[in-house]
C-alpha cells in the first residue's frame, strides 16, 4: 500500500472514528476534527502538481483480487489530479462552511460527517482508479453516500423522496455502467483503463462496441444529470446546503463528466459517441437554462443551472473528441473544445460552489430561499452580495471573471462544430452555436435573477422569519476564497493553463497542446455573440413578466418529473396487478400452472427432439392374470373419480393399494408386498380418521364438478408420462448393475435376502435418512396435535 492508496482511503478510515470523537468531545463541533484531513490531502495532491505538469504519470498498484485481474490501481495523471484537487480543495472549504452552517446542538453531526467522509473517499477513488471494477465500486459508494446525504433530514418527506429518486436514477446508470465495464472486458481482456486505451483501434471495430458505448454513456449521463436523467438533481436540493454545494455542483455530478473525459480515447473514434455526448450535452444545456428561469427557489435555480452547465461541459467534450479523427496538425483546430471543457469544469466548480454557499448564507440569515420573499438585502449583507455578484456574473459569462473566458472558448468550440467534415456535422453542426447562444441568453437571465431579485428591489422584512443580518465570518471564509479564485483565474487565466494542458493530455493522448487563454482576441464572431447574449439577456430580463407565461403553457403532465412519478406508480401498480393476476391463493390454480408447465416442457421436448420411440424387442410376455389385475386397478382408479361419497373413495383407494401389493407379489418382490400391505392398511385407517373429523358444515356429500380444463391437463400428464416411460424403456443404453449385487450379496455381505442387504448394507445411508424422515414425521404429527399456542387467544 502506497501513500496514494492511503490518501484515497484515509477519509473512509477517519469516518470510522468520527462517531467516537463526536461522543467524546460533545462541546467541540465535530467538523473541526475532520477539517485537517481534506487540507492535508489537498496539500498532498498539490505536491504532485509540478511532476504531473511535466508529463509524469504516477501509478501504484495494490493487489486486491489478482486472479480476476482486479487490482486497486491508482493512476494519477492530469485529469485525475485536477479532480482530486477539486474534491479535496472544495471539500475542505465545504467542511469549514458546514462547521458554521450546521448547529452542533440541533443536528446529528456524527452522521453528517461520516456520510461526507464516505463520499469524499469514494469520489477520490472514482477519479484516481485505473481499474474499472474498483472505479465502479467507488462509483456506487458515491451514489450511496449521496443518497444518505440527501436524506440527511430524514424526517422530511421531500428529503426522502429526493433521496430515493436520486438513488434509483444513479444506481440505474451505475448498473448499466457495470454492464459496459463487463463488455469492455470481453473486448479487451483487461479491466485497466490505460491498457484499454492502447487497444482503442481493436475495440472500435468489435461487435460489442456500440453496446458498451451506450452502457457507459448511460452511466455517465445519469450521474451527471444529463437530459432526460436530470430530474433527480433539483430534488436533491433537499439536502443541507453544504452538501448541495459539494456534491451537487462541484464533485459528484462531475463524475459523469470525468467518465466521459476518461473514456474519450477509447470510444471517441466512433461518430455515435461524438453525436451522443455533444447532442445530449447541448440539449441539457438548453433545457437546464430554459427551466432555471421559471424557478423561484434559489436552490432550484442553481440546480437547473448546474444541469445546464454540466450539459455545456459535456457537449464541449463531445465536440472536442472530433480532434481524435484528424492528424495532429489539423486536430489543434478542434482541441479548443476540450480545453474549454476542462477550463469551464474548473470555473464551474469555483463559482457554483460559492453561489451555493451564498444561497446557504441567505437561507441561514433570512429563513427563506424564495426570491418572491427576498429583496433589498444589498445593504444588509454586503459581503454576501459581493460574492453573489461575482459568482453570478462569472456564470453569466461577463468579463473580467473566469466564466467569460470559458464562455468565449465555448462559443469557439461550438462554431467549429459545423466545420467537422463527417457524421453529418457539416449540415446539422450549425445547430450547435445557435442552441448554445439561446441557452447562454437564458443563463444570463437566471444569473441576473439570482443577484437582483435577492439583493436589490424592495426590502420585505414582514415576509422573513428572522431579522436578517450579515453572516458570521466563518460562513463567509469559504465562499470568499472561492470567489477570489474566480477573480484570480479570470484576471490571470494562464496560471491554470499548464494544468489544463496536462488534463488535455490525458483526455486526448498523443497530441501536443499549447493552451493560451486571452481576454482579448479581436473583433471576432465569439465577441459579437457575447455582446448579443448580454443585450438580449438584458432586454428579456427587463420584460420578464411579459413572456414568463410561456412556462405555464407547458402542462405539468408532460414534464419529466411527472413521467418519472407516473412511471414509478405505474410500475408498482402493474407489478401488483400482474402478481394478483396469477397469485390467486388457490392451490388448484398453482397445480394447473405446474402441470401445464410439466406437459408443455416435457411434451415439446419429446416432439422437438423427436424422442418418442417404441421398441418391443425387450418386452416380456403378458399373462392373463396380469391383465385382470391391471383391469382391477384401472377400474378402481377410474371409479375413484366418479365416487359419490368420500367413504367410497377411501375404500376404493384401499382396494387399489392392495391390488398394487398383489402386483408386487406377481413381480416377485415379497418385501415390497409386505410393506405395501401394512402401509396401505395404516393409511386407509388414517384416511378414515380424517374423514371422521371433517367439520359438520361442509360434510354434505357432493360429487366433483366436471371441468374440461382439469380433464385435459390430467389426461395430458398421463399421456406425457406414459410416453416418456415407454421411450425410456425402449432406449435402454446400458445393462443394469444388479449383477454385482446378485453375486456378492452372500459372498460379501453375509445375507441371502438381497433387498434387505441392499437396504442396510450396500446402500445403508439411504435407509438411515428414511428413518430420519419417519422420525421427523412422527415428531411433527405429535407437535401438531399437542402444541396449541393459539388456543387461549381464540377464547
Amino acid at each position, binding site marked *: 500500500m502506497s501513500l496514494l492508496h492511503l490518501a484515497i482511503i484515509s477519509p473512509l478510515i477517519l469516518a470510522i472514528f468520527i462517531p467516537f470523537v463526536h461522543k467524546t468531545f460533545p462541546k467541540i463541533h465535530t467538523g473541526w476534527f475532520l477539517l485537517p484531513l481534506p487540507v492535508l490531502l489537498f496539500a498532498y495532491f498539490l505536491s504532485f502538481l509540478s511532476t504531473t505538469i511535466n508529463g509524469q504519470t504516477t501509478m501504484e498498484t495494490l493487489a486486491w483480487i489478482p486472479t480476476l485481474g482486479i487490482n486497486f490501481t491508482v493512476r494519477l495523471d492530469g485529469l485525475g489530479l485536477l479532480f482530486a484537487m477539486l474534491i479535496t480543495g472544495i471539500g475542505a472549504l465545504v467542511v469549514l462552511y458546514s462547521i458554521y452552517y450546521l448547529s452542533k446542538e440541533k443536528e446529528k453531526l456524527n452522521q453528517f460527517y461520516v456520510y461526507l467522509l464516505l463520499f469524499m473517499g469514494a469520489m477520490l477513488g472514482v477519479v484516481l482508479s485505473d481499474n474499472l471494477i474498483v472505479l465502479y465500486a467507488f462509483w456506487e459508494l458515491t451514489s450511496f453516500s449521496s443518497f444518505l446525504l440527501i436524506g440527511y433530514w430524514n424526517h422530511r418527506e421531500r428529503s426522502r423522496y429526493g433521496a430515493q429518486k436520486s438513488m434509483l436514477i444513479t444506481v440505474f446508470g451505475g448498473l448499466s455502467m457495470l454492464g459496459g465495464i463487463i463488455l469492455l472486458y470481453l473486448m479487451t481482456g483487461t479491466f485497466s483503463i490505460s491498457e484499454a486505451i492502447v487497444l482503442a483501434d481493436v475495440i472500435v471495430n468489435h461487435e460489442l462496441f456500440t453496446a458498451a458505448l451506450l452502457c457507459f454513456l448511460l452511466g455517465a449521463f445519469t450521474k451527471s444529470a444529463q437530459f432526460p436523467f436530470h430530474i433527480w438533481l433539483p430534488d436533491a436540493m433537499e439536502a443541507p446546503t453544504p452538501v448541495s454545494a459539494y456534491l451537487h455542483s462541484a464533485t459528484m455530478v462531475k463524475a459523469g463528466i470525468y467518465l466521459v473525459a476518461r473514456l474519450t480515447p477509447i470510444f471517441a473514434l466512433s461518430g455515435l459517441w461524438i453525436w451522443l455526448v455533444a447532442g445530449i450535452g447541448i440539449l441539457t444545456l438548453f433545457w437546464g437554462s430554459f427551466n432555471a428561469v421559471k424557478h423561484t427557489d434559489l436552490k432550484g435555480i442553481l440546480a437547473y443551472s448546474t444541469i445546464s452547465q454540466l450539459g455545456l461541459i459535456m457537449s464541449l467534450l463531445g465536440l472536442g473528441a472530433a480532434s481524435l479523427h484528424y492528424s495532429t496538425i489539423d486536430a489543434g483546430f478542434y482541441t479548443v473544445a476540450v480545453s474549454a471543457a476542462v477550463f469551464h469544469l474548473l470555473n464551474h466548480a469555483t463559482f457554483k460552489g460559492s453561489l451555493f454557499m451564498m444561497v446557504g448564507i441567505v437561507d441561514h440569515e433570512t429563513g427563506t430561499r424564495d426570491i418572491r420573499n427576498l429583496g433589498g438585502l444589498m445593504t444588509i449583507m454586503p459581503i454576501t452580495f459581493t460574492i453573489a455578484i461575482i459568482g453570478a456574473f462569472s456564470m453569466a459569462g461577463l468579463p473580467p471573471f473566469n466564466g467569460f473566458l470559458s464562455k468565449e472558448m465555448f462559443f469557439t468550440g461550438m462554431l467549429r462544430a459545423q466545420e467537422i467534415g463527417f457524421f453529418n456535422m457539416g449540415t446539422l453542426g450549425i445547430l450547435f452555436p445557435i442552441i448554445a447562444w439561446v441557452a447562454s441568453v437564458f443563463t444570463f437571465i437566471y444569473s441576473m435573477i439570482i443577484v437582483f431579485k435577492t439583493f436589490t428591489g424592495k426590502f420585505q422584512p414582514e415576509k422573513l422569519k428572522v431579522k436578517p443580518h450579515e453572516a458570521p465570518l466563518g460562513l463567509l471564509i469559504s465562499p470568499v476564497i472561492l470567489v477570489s479564485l474566480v477573480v484570480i483565474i479570470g484576471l490571470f487565466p494562464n496560471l491554470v493553463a499548464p494544468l489544463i494542458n496536462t488534463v488535455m493530455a490525458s483526455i486526448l493522448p498523443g497530441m501536443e497542446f499549447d493552451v493560451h487563454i486571452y481576454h482579448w482576441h479581436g473583433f471576432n464572431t465569439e465577441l459579437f455573440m457575447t455582446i448579443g447574449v448580454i443585450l438580449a439577456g438584458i432586454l428579456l430580463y427587463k420584460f420578464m413578466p411579459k413572456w414568463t407565461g410561456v412556462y405555464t403553457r407547458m402542462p405539468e403532465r408532460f414534464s419529466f418529473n411527472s413521467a418519472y412519478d407516473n412511471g414509478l406508480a405505474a410500475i408498482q401498480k402493474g407489478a401488483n396487478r400482474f402478481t394478483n393476476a396469477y397469485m390467486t391463493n388457490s392451490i388448484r390454480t398453482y397445480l394447473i400452472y405446474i402441470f401445464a408447465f410439466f406437459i408443455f416442457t416435457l411434451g415439446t421436448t419429446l416432439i422437438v427432439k423427436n424422442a418418442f420411440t417404441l421398441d418391443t424387442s425387450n418386452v416380456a410376455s403378458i399373462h392373463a392374470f396380469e391383465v385382470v389385475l391391471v383391469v382391477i386397478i384401472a377400474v378402481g382408479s377410474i371409479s375413484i373419480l366418479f365416487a359419490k361419497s368420500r367413504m367410497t373413495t377411501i375404500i376404493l383407494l384401499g382396494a387399489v393399494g392392495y391390488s398394487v401389493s398383489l402386483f408386487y407379489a406377481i413381480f416377485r418382490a415379497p418385501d415390497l408386498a409386505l410393506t405395501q400391505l*401394512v402401509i396401505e392398511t395404516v393409511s386407509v385407517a388414517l384416511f378414515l380418521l380424517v374423514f371422521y373429523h371433517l367439520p359438520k358444515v361442509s360434510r354434505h356429500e357432493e360429487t366433483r364438478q366436471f371441468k374440461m380444463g382439469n380433464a385435459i391437463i390430467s389426461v395430458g400428464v398421463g399421456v406425457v408420462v406414459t410416453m416418456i416411460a415407454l421411450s425410456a424403456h425402449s432406449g435402454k443404453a446400458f445393462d443394469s448393475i444388479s449383477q454385482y449385487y446378485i453375486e456378492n450379496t452372500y459372498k460379501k455381505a453375509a445375507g441371502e435376502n438381497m433387498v434387505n442387504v441392499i437396504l442396510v448394507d450396500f446402500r445403508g445411508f439411504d435407509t438411515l435418512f428414511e428413518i430420519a424422515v419417519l422420525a421427523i414425521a412422527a415428531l411433527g404429527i405429535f407437535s401438531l396435535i399437542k402444541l396449541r399456542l393459539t388456543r387461549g387467544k381464540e377464547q
Partner: protein
Amino acid sequence: MFDFVLYITLLCISLAMVGLVYRVIKGPSTPDRVVALDGLGINLVAIIAILSIILRTSAFLDIILLIGILAFIGTVTFAKFLEKGVILERDRDNL
C-alpha cells in the same frame, strides 16, 4: 399341465376379485363394501398362495399370514368405525 391348472385357478380367482371390486364400487351400503374388501383380502391370500406355487418359491408365505392379520384388523376397524364412529376410544382416566 399342472401349471395350466394353476393358471386357470388364478384367472378364476382374479375374476372373483373383479366381482368383489364391482361390489366395492357399487355398494350400495358401506357394510357391503367392507365385506367385499374383506373378501378381496382373502382372495389375495389365495392368489398369492397359488402364485408361490407357480413361482416355486416360499418367499411369499409371510405375505399370506400378513394379509390374514391385516384383513381381520381392517375389517374389525371398519366395523367398529361404522358401529361407534370412533376407532380408538379415549381412555377415560386420562381426561
